């Protein structure tokens, strides 16, 4: 599998898109650092960009990469390679390449700005971990959709819809539900619904780490209570870990029984 990961990674490293992606993060974080002159507020602004963009780019790249490499995948399938090796190799190759663009794009400007001498280093690390985890989750989800849809237009549409739901519609729906049922106790409901959306889960982690969850009012206090403890943080990390493994598991299941 390492072979497939390595060559997929080489292939993507040389495509202009992964360079673009890195440059985008570099420019944005440089701009934010110099505009705000403060590491913590730059991290918050970047969080808002990252939580939308990393899933979006992961989704789009996942779908495009799957369809673009489908002929080559067929060629690999004719070799004595297990399907798990081929599909997980390509999936992880793509995830690692995107994550590297993200980590370098964000990391280099922050390092030059003096991240190592500040106390925001752990906040920044959480930001990076969130970005990488979201990349793995959404590339995986997009891969599942592409595997299930041989029609490219449909696959692309469903993948974008998936992103739209997780990144935007989900919170909206949650808000409507909470407004409608505001007379009822909603603690458990809001906790569970946060766990079901990896973007929300990532956001909460950063907000808690930055200690600005008070901004979220009552719910924030609830989250602080739940997520803020060592137990809470370990639970939410575990959940994110499960979230990032879940798509690969599904990819494996679908790929081993699919006709090519």
């Amino acid at each position, binding site marked *: 599998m390492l*072979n497939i990961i390595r*060559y*997929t990674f*080489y*292939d*993507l*490293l*040389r*495509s202009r898109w992964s360079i673009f992606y890195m440059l985008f993060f570099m420019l944005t974080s440089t701009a934010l650092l110099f505009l705000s002159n403060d590491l913590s507020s730059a991290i918050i602004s970047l969080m808002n960009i990252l939580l939308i963009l990393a899933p979006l780019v992961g989704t789009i790249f996942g779908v495009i990469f799957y369809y*673009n*490499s489908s*002929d*080559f995948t*067929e*060629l*690999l*399938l*004719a*070799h*004595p*390679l*297990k*399907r798990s090796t081929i599909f997980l190799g390509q999936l992880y190759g793509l995830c690692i390449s995107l994550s590297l663009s993200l980590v370098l794009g964000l990391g280099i400007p922050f390092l030059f700005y003096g991240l190592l001498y500040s106390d925001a280093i752990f906040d920044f690390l959480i930001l990076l971990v969130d970005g990488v985890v979201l990349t793995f989750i959404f590339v995986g989800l997009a891969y599942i959709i592409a595997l299930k849809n041989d029609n490219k237009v449909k696959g692309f549409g469903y993948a974008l819809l998936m992103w739209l739901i997780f990144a935007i519609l989900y919170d909206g729906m949650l808000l409507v539900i909470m407004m409608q049922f505001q007379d009822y106790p909603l603690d458990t409901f809001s906790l569970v619904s946060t766990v079901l959306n990896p973007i929300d889960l990532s956001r909460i982690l950063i907000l808690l780490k930055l200690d600005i969850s008070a901004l979220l009012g009552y719910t924030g206090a609830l989250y602080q209570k739940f997520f803020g403890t060592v137990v809470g943080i370990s639970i939410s990390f575990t959940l994110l870990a499960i979230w990032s493994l879940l798509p690969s598991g599904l990819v494996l299941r679908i790929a081993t*029984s699919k*006709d*090519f």
Partner: protein
Amino acid sequence: MIEFKNIKKKFGQLEVLKGIDFEVPQGKVTAVLGPNGSGKTTLIKSLLGMVFPDSGSIHLDNYRLNGKAEYRNNIGYLPQIARFPENLTARELLKMVSSVRASNNNAGELIERFKLDEYLDKKLQHLSGGTRQKINIVMALMFDADYLILDEPTTGLDPIALRILKQLIAEQKEAGKTILVTSHILNFVEEVADEVVFLLEGHIHYQGSIEKLTSTTNTEGLESAIARLMEDQHA
């Protein structure tokens, strides 16, 4: 020996293979012919384990295909469409493919014959269709596998490369390889194949030598024989 036993395959409502039974004769070149959508590619893909038949079994040297990957060490495959990771060079691609096979390879000799040397360090996206097809052929033949499956091998080849391909097929046959080839270019089939299998709508309508086919259909040449077979079917 390759044996197909009662292979059936449906894609949704579409029944592509309706009970295919045949043996590919050892050490010969067998051409699988048939119009578009007759099930040629599905048949080949089930042999390669890319498509799972709904029923029936495929045997390779008395080994029944069961979803494991190792038996493919014994197969060289030339797919119909030559598309590779765009940003890798041809040399990297060949290296990658070699790294997934246990056996030694003779890529160097094939590269020399197709005069591919000057293209090896170019990115694959900058190579012409014909050059990619040559690389494709190199990848199919470089492992000295006992079974060769060539799906439309002539696509995009210039006359010189086509001649080399024919020579290669003849040499492989000489070396005792069993070769399965599909092609729409019937002149090419007539030149290289010993046996033909004619597929139509998921059934085998003819299997045997080209001579027998032309004599039973009372025609001259493979093209008119195939045309006659199809007319008879629709009559």
